[in-house]
């Protein structure tokens, strides 16, 4: 059975959003996903990484980690930061909820992750950080 894993760390600069989703796409290519599946993975990873970059450290510099693992026909990604954390995860996951209403954030990030991945789990502790785990089965 196919097994692989990877881990990459980068600072919370917005141009690393593109880097992170490109890494995710390159990592999963081994499973031979369809173009749609690849776009779904890139979008979900982009949402999680963007959340970490925008909310994770407020305006401080910090590190965002992207881990990936392949097991059989299933891919798992974990996006984590050691930043401020989410006070109310259920509320953050509601469609159209944004932690930054003063900016033009749509509040659709978690909704899109949930639509495009099979499993989305969020763990967060205020002052400690946030970890988003996403799993998708690549069946053709």
């Amino acid at each position: 059975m196919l097994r692989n894993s990877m881990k990459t760390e980068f600072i919370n600069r917005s141009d690393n959003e593109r880097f992170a989703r490109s890494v995710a796409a390159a990592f999963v290519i081994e499973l031979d996903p369809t173009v749609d599946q690849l776009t779904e993975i890139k979008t979900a990873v982009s949402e999680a990484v963007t959340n970490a970059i925008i909310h994770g450290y407020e305006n401080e510099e910090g590190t965002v980690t992207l881990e990936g693992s392949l097991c059989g026909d299933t891919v798992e990604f974990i996006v984590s930061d050691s930043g401020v954390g989410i006070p109310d995860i259920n509320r953050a996951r509601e469609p159209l909820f944004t932690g930054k209403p003063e900016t033009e954030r749509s509040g659709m990030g978690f909704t899109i992750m949930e639509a495009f991945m099979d499993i989305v789990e969020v763990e967060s502790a205020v002052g400690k950080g946030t970890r988003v785990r996403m799993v998708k089965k690549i069946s053709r």
Partner: protein
Amino acid sequence: MELIIYAKYRALVARLQGELDHHSAGLVREEIDRALERTGAVNIAFDFRHVTFMDSSGIGVLMGRYKKVTALGGRLAVFGASDTVRRIMRMSGLERFMVIADKLENCFEEVAADAQKQYENGIY
């Protein structure tokens, strides 16, 4: 992300090329808002035919511009988006606010008429 904005009469046609994410959203927002001010346009048609990726940051940009043009009495349309991008737009309920079309000709009349003139003049 590259952005080309055509303005004629009271409409902008904003042709986006590349990936629309949080990083590129700032540029798109600034350029379009500046063009709205400079030209006095009140309608926007977003040309998404060359957008290769969009996440929820793009929804924020579109909703932000929608609020602007609505306040000016104008309208907003998006045309030529890929299937996945349209899915994200549908998920976010955007079609309740703006015209989402395959082609520019199917967007609202004002913008289509202006664009037609641009086609005829060989600008677009």
